[in-house]
C-alpha cells in the first residue's frame, strides 16, 4: 500500500512544482498574451517618484540650456558613447560647447579648468568629510569596544560577536562611501569627457550624422569668468552684458558694442541674444 501512495505523492509534488514554475515564468515574461487590450504590453504605472526636493536658493543663475531644451527626437550623446567618452553632463557640456567653438580657446579652457577645479574641490571636500565621518565612527566603535571589554569580561563571546557585527557594518558603510566617492569621480570624469567631446563635436561640425534636429545650443559664460578673460570669441549673456558700460556702434548696418577696449557683437543663439567678444570692426 505504501508503494502506490509514495508514487502518487511524488507525482503530485512534481505537478505542483511544475505549475509553480510555469506561473513564475509567466510573471517574468510580463504576462504575455494576456493583460491590456489591443495587444498592449504590461507597462508599470508605479515606481519612480521621489527625487530631490527643491530647497530654494537664489532666483537667478540657473541654466536654461540642456539636451531636453532642444526638444529633439535624437541626441548625439548616444548609448554607444555612454560607456566611452561621450556621456555628458548637460549644463557643463552646454557651456563648454558654447564657449569653445570658435577661434579662441582661452576663455573656454579657463572655464573648463575652473569647472574641473570646482568639481575637484567638491570631490575633495566630500572625501575629507567622509574620511572624518569614518574616523569618528572608528573612534566611537573603538571606545565602545574598549569599555565593553572592560565591563563585560565574562561575556567575551557576545562582545566579540557584537564587535564583529559593528566592524562589518562599519566596513559596509566604508564600502558605500567608497562607492559614492567612485560615483562622484565617475560623474566628474563624465562631465570632463562631455566637455571635451562636445568641444570636439563643434569643431568638427555642428551635428552628428543625419540627425539634423539634434540641437545642443550655446550658453554664455558667467560674469565671474568673463571679468578676467576677454578673449575674442568668448560669449556672454545679455544679463552679464547689461552690467557693462558700453556704447553702441553701427558699422555697415550691423550693430556692435564698445565696452572700454573690448568690442562685443550682439548675436542670436539658441533662443537668446548673446554677446560675443570680437576684434574691433574695420576702421575702429
Amino acid at each position, binding site marked *: 500500500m505504501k508503494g*502506490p501512495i509514495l*508514487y*502518487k505523492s511524488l*507525482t503530485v509534488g*512534481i505537478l505542483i512544482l*511544475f505549475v509553480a514554475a510555469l506561473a513564475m*515564468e509567466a510573471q517574468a515574461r510580463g504576462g504575455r498574451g494576456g493583460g*491590456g487590450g489591443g*495587444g*498592449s*504590453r504590461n*507597462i508599470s504605472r508605479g515606481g519612480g517618484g521621489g527625487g*530631490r526636493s527643491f530647497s530654494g536658493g537664489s532666483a537667478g543663475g*540657473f541654466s*536654461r540650456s*540642456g*539636451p*531636453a*531644451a*532642444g*526638444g*529633439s*527626437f*535624437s*541626441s*548625439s*550623446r548616444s*548609448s554607444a*558613447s*555612454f560607456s566611452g567618452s561621450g*556621456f555628458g*553632463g*548637460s*549644463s557643463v557640456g552646454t557651456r563648454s560647447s558654447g564657449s569653445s567653438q*570658435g*577661434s579662441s580657446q582661452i576663455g573656454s579652457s579657463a572655464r573648463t579648468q575652473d569647472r574641473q577645479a570646482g568639481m575637484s574641490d567638491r570631490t575633495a571636500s566630500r572625501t575629507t568629510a567622509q574620511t572624518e565621518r569614518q574616523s569618528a565612527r572608528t573612534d566611537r566603535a573603538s571606545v565602545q569596544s574598549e569599555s565593553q571589554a572592560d565591563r563585560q569580561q565574562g561575556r567575551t563571546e557576545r562582545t566579540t560577536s557584537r564587535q564583529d557585527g559593528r566592524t562589518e557594518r562599519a566596513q559596509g558603510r566604508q564600502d558605500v562611501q567608497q562607492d559614492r566617492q567612485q560615483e562622484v569621480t565617475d560623474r566628474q570624469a563624465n562631465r570632463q569627457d562631455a566637455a571635451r567631446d562636445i568641444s570636439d563635436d563643434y569643431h568638427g*561640425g*555642428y551635428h552628428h550624422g543625419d*540627425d*539634423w*534636429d539634434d*540641437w545642443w*545650443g*550655446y550658453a554664455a559664460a558667467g560674469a565671474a569668468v568673463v571679468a578676467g578673460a576677454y578673449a575674442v*570669441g568668448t560669449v556672454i549673456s545679455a544679463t552679464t552684458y547689461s552690467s557693462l558700460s558700453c556704447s*553702441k556702434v553701427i558699422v555697415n*548696418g*550691423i*550693430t556692435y558694442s564698445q565696452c572700454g577696449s573690448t568690442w562685443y*557683437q*550682439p*548675436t*542670436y*543663439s*539658441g*533662443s*537668446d*541674444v*548673446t554677446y*560675443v567678444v570680437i576684434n574691433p570692426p574695420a576702421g575702429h
Partner: protein
Amino acid sequence: MNPMKWTVCAVLCLIGAVTAVAPFSAAEEKALEAAAPDPAMESLMRTAHFLAQLKEFRVHMRIGYDVVQESGQKIEFGERRTWTVVRPDRFRADVERSDGEKAAIVFDGKAITVYHPNLNMYAVSEISGDIDTAVKHLIKDLNVRMPLSLLLVTSLPKELEKRVVRADLVETSVLEGTPCAHLAVRGDAVDFQMWVPIEGDPLPRRIVLTYKNDEGQPQFWANFSDWNLTPNPPADFFSLDIPKDASRIQFLAQVRQSMTPAKPAEKKGGAK
C-alpha cells in the same frame, strides 16, 4: 491503475504540457512579432504621414523641459509656442518663454527672420526653398532652438523610421475628454511617448521626450491644443512688422563662421 502506469501517464502529461507552453525560440518569436500587426507602430506612422501631408495648419503648444544644473538639481522651464505652417514655404513660430521673453521666427520662402521684441533686435538669414530646407538650416547652420522641429518636415515618416527602435501601446488614456492611444516609443538615444486620438485626425495631443543617456535623464514635454487645419493666415502674416529703430544683429553661428571658416564640404545652407 497500476502505480507505475499512473506515474508514466503523469510524466507523459507533463511532457505534453511543457511542449505546449514552452517558450518560442528567439527566431520564432521575432518572426511572429514581424508577422503580427503592430498597432503602436501603425498609430505612430499614421500620425507621421498625416502631419507630413498637411497643406497648412496652426497649433498651440504648452511646453516644459528639464535642465539638469551643474549641481545636479533638475529645474523645469516652460514656454508657449504657436506654429503657423503653410506649405510649401511659409512658416511662423511665435514664442513666449516662462520668463516673459518673446520671439517670432518667420520663414517667407526667401529668408528666415528672428525677432526679439523685448530687446528690439532681429537677425536675418537668406535661404530659399521649402520649409524642410529652412528648418534644417535654422537648426544645423544657425543653431536656433526649434523644439519638435521634426514634426514640421514632410520627411517626418522617414525620420521616425530611422530613429524608432520599437513602439508599444501603453493604454487608452483620456486627454481633455478625448480618448487617446498612449504610445511608448524607444529610440537609440531618446525615448518618447505620444498621445494620439483614437478617432478622428491622428494629430498628437501630447509628447514627452526622455533623454535617457544624458545626466539626470531630463525630459521635454509638449501639450498640443487648438489644431487648426485651415488657418488661412493673411498674406502679410509671414512678414514681421519690425520697428525702424530695431537693431539688426547676426546669428552667433554666422559670426563664428566668419572667425573660423568651416571646411568647404561642411558648409551648407544659405548662411550669410
